[in-house]
């Protein structure tokens, strides 16, 4: 199934046979549903998130068609509301985060020299929940019951009097459902990075991408509960008559906004941070040197993830809060540009000091820097309260966050797709096609979104389904629509490029880029056990470091081969000193069953079939109890005294 690197010296043929026997999963339908292999799960995350991205993108294309000329009638106002809400919600929750978690799932164990994630079954569970939650939300669209209140779903427009029907119930329940997956994934990343690093990979040798994923995971741990609280309260208000957001009974509509943005602003960094990690991972291979200022970038990552919790009110500058709080949040929003700037300058210095290899991934990284800096520039403008109040809820805001999110997330994701495609599929992509995709994407991006700054300043509000012809916005809107079609063509080229590589691409060598991190020391695609020998890491760039390379060939030792049983190595949290070899779980149906039971629960809650929901809760409890049930062992092994 793969292009192996041949028998590595230092590992016996019988060791490899045993490893294959313990780790390989048969190619059967059953194995497809029971797999716990982080590489398969990672690829599934990427493909599924790509599918939701395509749906949300087609939604955007339909909206741009509607807005191409004034008073068009492609969409009704109701349809338009549902489309822009699903576009935003899906892009944020069903595309950006899961896509980057997909990269994390595939790459983190490979980059840290482990054979799987810390909790492989939880990993499989997280994927199934993500898939089901995504389908749960998208399935509402054909019924005309999709969320219709904007991705941030402000009160009081989200309450049951102003917004009857299932729309916002789908939103609240769908995001609560999805939150289970995101939280499980975040915990898994943190624990994997803390305990499963190869021996010798002390914290100062952890790849920047892994730092970024771990910082993101910590932000998820502390930010997502605010969104979950918000949605739980919303559902209680709507369905069971509670009054959290109802001012006529002592509630407060601003409570929704506070909780939403306490989550929402860290979420911007939850999306962008791993993408910045991709940039730091891609650059060394194409500049032929390590990223400049490794400790500074790590500090910047940590600083951003902390400061991001102190800036949420800059989304609420137009809500009439006390002036003093504006000053504080304005200052915090200005300060957070400093660590972001440090990273940008570190990348520029890396490119300046290195020797550039101008391949498609590097092109996308350069496109990222240009676009993201422009988005960051308008972001710094918003930190000024007075300016913010002038342009709030106009297309200027739409322009800004598309520059940040397309620039800060989609460009790096595309760079990552081309960069790691050989590792994931074992095939090389077509460079010419990739360059076409890049130039079309770069052009399409700026043609679509740059004019939005202009007609935003000219007064066009966001979220309007049409506009009058005499306001001077017609030409610029048409330009944006043309850009949107360019974007669609470029993304189609990316898709064709990926399919072409998988079907017809020439076989990829283990290390086509001469990359610096450990994933390039595995086969392409990696064996089911990732590493025949778990490396002993001696530097920040283990694949460029002879001693590390030697540790997996002539220097291989039995305690890092671990071929008896399905095993990997635990190491200490800070210095990665070896602690013990542990047995990893076998494939199982339980994650799928558990996610299925949760799907039944959320559907039953949505449709008010409460007895079914109670039964589903019982099924969830029973599955978890069976999942964690301890295997019976002899007393001597357990160490029982009485």
């Amino acid at each position: 199934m793969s292009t192996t690197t041949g028998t590595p010296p230092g590992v016996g043929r019988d060791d490899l046979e045993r490893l294959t026997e313990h780790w390989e999963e048969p190619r059967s339908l059953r194995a497809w549903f029971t797999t716990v292999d982080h590489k398969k799960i990672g690829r599934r995350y990427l493909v599924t998130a790509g599918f939701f991205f395509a749906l949300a993108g087609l939604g955007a294309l339909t909206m741009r068609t509607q807005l191409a000329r004034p008073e068009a009638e492609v969409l009704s106002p109701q349809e338009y509301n549902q489309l822009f809400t699903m576009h935003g919600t899906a892009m944020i929750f069903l595309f950006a985060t899961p896509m980057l978690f997909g990269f994390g799932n595939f790459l983190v164990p490979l980059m840290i020299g482990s054979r799987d994630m810390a909790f492989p079954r939880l990993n499989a569970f997280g994927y199934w929940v993500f898939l089901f939650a995504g389908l749960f939300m998208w399935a509402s669209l054909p019924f005309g019951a999709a969320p219709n209140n904007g991705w941030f779903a402000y009160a009081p427009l989200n309450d049951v009097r102003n917004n009857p029907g299932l729309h916002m119930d789908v939103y609240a329940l769908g995001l609560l459902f999805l939150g289970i997956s995101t939280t499980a994934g975040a915990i898994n990343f943190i624990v994997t990075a803390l305990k499963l690093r190869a021996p010798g990979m002390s914290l100062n040798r952890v790849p920047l991408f892994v730092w970024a994923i771990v910082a993101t995971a910590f932000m998820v741990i502390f930010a997502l509960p605010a969104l979950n609280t918000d949605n739980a309260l919303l559902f209680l208000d709507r369905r069971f008559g509670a009054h959290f957001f109802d001012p006529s009974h002592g509630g407060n509509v601003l409570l929704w906004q506070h909780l939403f943005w306490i989550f929402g602003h860290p979420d911007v960094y939850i999306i962008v941070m791993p993408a910045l990690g991709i940039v730091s991972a891609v650059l060394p291979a194409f500049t032929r040197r390590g990223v400049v200022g490794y400790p500074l970038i790590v500090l910047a990552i940590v600083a951003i993830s902390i400061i991001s919790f102190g800036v949420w009110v800059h989304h609420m500058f137009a809500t009439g809060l006390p002036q003093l709080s504006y000053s504080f949040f304005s200052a915090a929003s200005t300060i957070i540009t400093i660590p972001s700037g440090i990273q940008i300058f570190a990348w520029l210095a890396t490119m300046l000091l290195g020797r550039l290899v101008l391949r498609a991934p590097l092109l996308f990284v350069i496109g990222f820097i240009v676009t993201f800096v422009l988005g960051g520039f308008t972001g710094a403008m918003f930190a000024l309260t007075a300016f913010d109040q002038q342009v709030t809820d106009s297309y200027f805001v739409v322009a800004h966050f598309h520059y940040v999110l397309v620039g800060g997330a989609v460009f790096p994701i595309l760079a990552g797709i081309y960069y790691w495609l050989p590792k994931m599929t074992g095939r090389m992509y077509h460079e010419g096609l990739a360059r076409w995709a890049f130039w079309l994407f770069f052009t399409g991006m700026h043609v679509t979104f740059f004019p939005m700054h202009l007609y935003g300043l000219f007064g066009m509000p966001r979220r309007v389904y049409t506009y009058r012809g005499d306001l001077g916005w017609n030409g610029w809107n048409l330009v944006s629509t043309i850009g949107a079609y360019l974007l669609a063509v470029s993304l189609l080229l990316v898709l064709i490029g990926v399919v072409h590589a998988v079907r017809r691409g020439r076989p990829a060598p283990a290390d086509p880029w001469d990359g610096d991190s450990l994933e390039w020391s595995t086969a392409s695609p990696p064996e089911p056990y990732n590493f025949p020998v778990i490396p002993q890491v001696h530097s920040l760039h283990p694949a460029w470091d002879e001693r590390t390379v030697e540790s997996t060939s002539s220097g291989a030792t039995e305690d890092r081969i671990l071929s008896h049983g399905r095993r990997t190595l635990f190491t200490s949290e800070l210095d990665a000193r070896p602690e013990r070899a542990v047995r990893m779980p076998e494939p199982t149906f339980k994650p799928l069953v558990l996610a299925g039971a949760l799907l039944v629960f959320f559907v039953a809650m949505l449709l008010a079939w409460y007895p079914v929901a109670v039964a589903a809760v019982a099924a969830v409890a029973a599955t978890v109890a069976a999942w964690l049930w301890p295997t019976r062992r002899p007393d001597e092994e357990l160490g029982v005294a009485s």
Partner: protein
Amino acid sequence: MTDRGGVVAAATGAEALTTELPVGRPTGWWGMVMFVATEATLFACLLGSYFYLRFQYGPQWPPPGIEDPTLLKPLVMTAILVPSSLPVMWAERGIRHGQRRRLRLGMAATLLMGTTFLLLQGTEYDEKLHMFSLTTNAYGSLFYVITGFHGLHVLVGLTMIGWLLVASLRGGSFGAHRHDRVRNVAIYWHFVDTVWVAILFTIYLSPRL
């Protein structure tokens, strides 16, 4: 730091492999700590919402028509729930020395105390529902959702403890070398107890300040 046949060999030698003697913090411990961290944030958001709505509401809190919460029953409930962590700690220490009897007794005691807490909470709801409900006003919504959400956590904790008790009664489950699950349930239970103190302060004591 090359380690060829040193510490690693000691940890992966034949004897260590069959028992997997605990060295360092296991992944399960970190997983549970992270889970509790995110759950604690959830409670922080709920309690934050309580204070936000309270201070936005105006000078009289609880709103007119609702009396200040009485203290006797919640204090009794506190006196039952908070010490219920002690048998868990005692049981965990016991199983660390391989004493299964202590594990079983401790779990049974905690199960009893936790159930008593939930029953008392039920009688409290029964009294309060005459005065106000979830749908009366924002105060009612906050009261029932916060205490109810905590009650749900007690129920989940009790399910875990019941599960541990059943597994340990079967035999062949836990011992000095294998008690990760006991430790994880203990962490969760201590968390449920600690959060109650914050709820006691917020819901019952703070309106009297």
